[in-house]
């Protein structure tokens, strides 16, 4: 009896897990691996870089007031099968980080699909442009962030540590990573004050 039941349950499990129902082909899924935030003509512009094998990344820009709004708009109007589970890097332009850093990191902290240790860095406009042109730039930035974290553990390079530092009250501030195209995309550290980043 038990053997029959086990065999039956194994058949059912196999049938249930074949994945033919509601499947999504990998080439149709829009896996985002990088997002940059910069000031555009109509306000803040969120650019989603899709995972791909080409030399130049496929990018979709969405004007929005916050990352939450940008994600909703992108899924609704621009990228129907948007997947942010593999997001590795969020690049905030030096012009806009004061406006968006707190709200965006807070939003990300409530979403279970994001990895808490994905990288966040400040950068200048030229760096964002070079990311738009060449896929290899993102890899280079990530490698540098890993090195920076290793050499200087006090620098906050991910959502987790930035969120926790923004939540702490009565502290002087904290260090985040900063990339400058003038220094050939070298990552340095920048001290920012929590009080300068409004809620």
């Amino acid at each position, binding site marked *: 009896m038990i053997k029959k039941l086990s065999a039956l349950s194994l058949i059912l499990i196999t049938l249930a897990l074949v994945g033919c129902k509601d499947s999504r082909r990998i080439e149709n899924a829009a896996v985002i691996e990088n997002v940059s935030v910069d000031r555009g003509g109509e306000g803040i512009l969120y650019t989603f870089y899709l995972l791909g094998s080409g030399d130049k990344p496929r990018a979709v820009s969405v004007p929005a007031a916050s990352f939450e709004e940008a994600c909703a708009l992108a899924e609704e109007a621009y990228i129907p099968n948007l997947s942010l589970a593999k997001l590795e890097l969020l690049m905030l332009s030096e012009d806009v980080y004061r406006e968006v850093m707190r709200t965006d990191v807070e939003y990300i902290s409530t979403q279970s699909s994001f990895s808490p*240790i994905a990288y966040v860095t400040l950068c200048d406009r030229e760096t964002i442009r070079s990311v738009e042109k060449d896929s290899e730039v993102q890899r280079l930035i990530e490698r540098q962030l890993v090195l920076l974290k290793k050499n200087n553990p006090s620098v906050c390079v991910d959502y*987790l540590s930035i969120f926790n530092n923004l*939540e702490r009250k009565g502290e002087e501030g904290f260090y985040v990573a900063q990339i400058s195209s003038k220094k050939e995309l070298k990552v340095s550290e920048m001290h920012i004050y929590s009080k300068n980043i409004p809620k």
Partner: protein
Amino acid sequence: MQTKVAFSAKRLLLTLLLCSCSVILLQSFDLSPRAGFLFHLICIAVGLAVSFLFFIPSVVIRVRTGFDFPTLVHRESPRLSPFIAVFYGAYFVYTAVFFLLPYTDMFCKKYFPETSPCFVAALLLISCVYAAAKGTNVITRFGIFLFVFALIANVLMMGGSVSSLSFGSGVVLNGTADELFRGALYFVTPAFIAVIFGFLSGFTKNFRLRQVVLTLILTGVKYAAIMFFVCFALGAYAYRQEYQTFVLSRVAHFGIYSGIESVYLALTTMSVFLIVSLFLCCVGKSVGQSGVLKHIICFAAVIFTLHTCAVYLRPVSELLTDTAVMVGFTFIAAVVVPCAYLIFGRVRLDKKAVGA
């Protein structure tokens, strides 16, 4: 079917240790976000000290008579057996759903959002029915394997979070009396293992009281270690998300390799499997001869029905996942009923008197 061979009490308590540790694996909302690590340590100590008290009646029965509680009732007062069976049947069904609900919820929210929680519960229950039919001896052997796996998983989870440690805050002892009560109440949840022990200790040999003490101490150490990493590696971020131990497994990284969520999923799946299988063994025993497949299947069907009701009806779900209700029910099952039976039944706790 089940073998009647007695196995070491150490093995049963090792399995119960894994069951009690699964409480913290599925922890989600019950602890105060603003309380510091030391405050959580006090809650853990109080909670596990109370849990030890829950063990006393079953330990007394086991040591003095050599039997477990249902066997003693069956031998000494057969007329009372149906009432005891009904009460403990309800208890084990309730507790099984108490663990199954957060597990299926976590599985569907964190891993496969498009999967039905009922489907996950059904698959797990089928495996548990098979394991329960094989008996306690086989399940506790699986416990040895799971112990090794849990050890590796915890080392990976904690070792990978070391680089995220930050001692900026959280050491301070802040928290109110109400938070202390709620925290301690949460850490009394593992006392359900006292009821399992009361039902299955009859299969064991070489039992010593220190084994129970060691089980609870190791549970406390595991809880303290998890809380330490939740407080200092995750910080405020932990309380923005459900299932903090899951977040801990996500944060764990070794160089460029990050996230051991699959290891966490395997560990929770096996822990919940172990708990529900042991409950089905106990439930089979409470209704009479242990390991009877039709009893086990019946109770698994009841557990599945209750789980399905809880998935679709929010008030049912709230009642079934309420820690206070769970602890109250456990108190009645582990302490009130055995003590009432011994006092009002005037059972002589003597090996010769009960024919052991």
